[in-house]
């Protein structure tokens, strides 16, 4: 069990006078090496959840155990050494944070902060850049000269360069075109299979992650509404509705076809290929 939240609560206190609930007695346990989708409507607490994981936010109540760190509510502001290197957090629109003169310098920022030698850091940067599919020749350019897709890759590489054990991304595919979205999801999935990292992706688009994630967590009003596999989630209409989610199009299409034909689809059909297979089978029989 690599991440554990026990009765974690948090209230935002800087909105005028009345506090806004962020997390409400949230309980969650996640295993290592998996790709986990964190879904929910805006304001449900997904981003708040992520920020608790690397100590940006300290919970008001409850206990968080992450890797071998222990974050309790009363512990004060000090974050344990090494937490931020081992739990990498990529914010929404991360390209807005690029600030150095060259892409390479920006990517080096993380590993150097965490104490890597310049040589180690440079090597880590090269590896991270190639992993996200960022051309090496772009490393020497100013980040502002990159296309938006390239900037996004650079920003993700910037966090990967520190070689975290857990990588949490907040809406990493926002404003990307469909091809880039799928490409990014594939690479993130690769991180779990090829490098054994644990990857959490916060998104409200179930469609793009349904084929990649091992586990799905739906958050609503600061609590976990659902935790399970894609197969379990996709047929739970109430969960989808309450979480403000839409079933993947293949599932909806299968549902409509089945209703027309008077049948039930056998199992969850995550993508067009599975749907075509099922339909072909149907026609064959």
């Amino acid at each position, binding site marked *: 069990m690599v991440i554990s939240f026990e009765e974690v609560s948090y209230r935002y206190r800087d909105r*005028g006078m009345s506090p806004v609930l962020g997390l409400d007695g949230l309980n969650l346990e996640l295993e290592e090496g998996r790709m986990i989708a964190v879904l929910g409507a805006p304001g449900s607490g997904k981003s708040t959840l992520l*920020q608790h994981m690397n100590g940006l936010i300290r919970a008001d109540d409850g206990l968080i155990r992450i890797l071998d760190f222990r974050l309790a509510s009363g512990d004060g502001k000090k974050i344990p050494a090494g937490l*931020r*290197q081992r739990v990498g957090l990529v*914010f929404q629109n*991360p390209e807005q*944070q690029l600030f*150095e003169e060259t892409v390479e310098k920006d990517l080096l920022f993380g590993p150097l902060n965490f104490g890597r030698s310049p040589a180690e850091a440079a090597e880590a940067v090269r590896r991270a850049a190639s992993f996200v599919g960022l051309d090496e020749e772009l490393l020497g350019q100013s980040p502002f000269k990159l296309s938006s897709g390239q900037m996004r890759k650079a920003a993700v590489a910037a*966090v990967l360069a*520190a070689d975290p054990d857990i990588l949490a991304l907040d809406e990493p595919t926002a404003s990307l075109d469909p091809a880039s979205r799928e490409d990014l999801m594939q690479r993130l999935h690769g991180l779990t299979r090829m490098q054994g990292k644990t990857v959490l992706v916060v998104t409200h688009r179930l469609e793009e992650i349904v084929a990649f994630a091992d586990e799905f967590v739906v958050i609503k009003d600061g609590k976990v509404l659902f935790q399970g596999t894609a197969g379990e989630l996709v047929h739970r209409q109430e969960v989808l509705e309450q979480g403000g989610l839409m079933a993947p199009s293949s599932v909806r299409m299968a549902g409509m076809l089945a209703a027309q034909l008077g049948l039930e689809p056998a199992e969850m059909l995550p993508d067009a290929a599975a749907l075509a297979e099922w339909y072909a089978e149907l026609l064959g029989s």
Partner: protein
Amino acid sequence: MKRKIILGRYMEGDSWVHRLDPRAKTAAMPLFMVAVFLVDGYMGVLALLLFTAVVIRTTRIPYRYYIRAMKPLLFLLLFILVFHILYDAGGGKLLDVGAFKVYAGGLEKGIVSASRMGLFIMLAAVLTFTTQPEQLAQGLGSLLRPLTCIGVPTDRLVLMLGIALRFIPTIFEEAERLWKAQQSRGLDLSSRPLREKARLIIALLVPVTTGAFRRAIGLADSMEARGYRLGARRSRFRAFVWKRADTLFVAAFLLPVAAAALL
């Protein structure tokens, strides 16, 4: 970070002061300023303090928020106090410790000067806590309209003020998000020397500035696309109606002026 800057923030509420015409509240400020400048001794300060406390009470916002509004300027207040204590003579000698001589006169001047600043901040807080920023700007614009006769571009100024007030929280949030992102990458300012700290803070906030400029251009385009032209006649969504309560409010501020002048 955001929690600390409390002075400019609007606090939701439905008190009598919240419902006043923003022009009345804006007009009360210069009157209070006059009172603050006229104040010249412990009695005057006390009277003004009492008046301010009563006004604060009617806003139905807890006192502690007003105290917190002064926090960023606490250093300045203390500086003023200490400055007068150390360098002003007059009145009986209170303390004599080596090179330091503290006089009653100096102490009084220090307390009065620091109180002036504190009172001013608290009334500014009353204004900003109870009035939405856009209404403040609009109220100010209405009051300044006569100045267009002498060539002051009040339209432009009010627009600038309104937009700035509207975007301060947004840009602040963006800066905060940026800061969190950099902290997540291991930014640790505590271990760095001062000059590097400054350089790093500036470099990290470059994206906020470019973002702000991008926003400004986008906003201008969006306003123009919807037919906005600077200086052209336009109707208002929220028209201000001056009521008796507003006259009462402004008139009430003659009290501190009188008190300050007499005490």
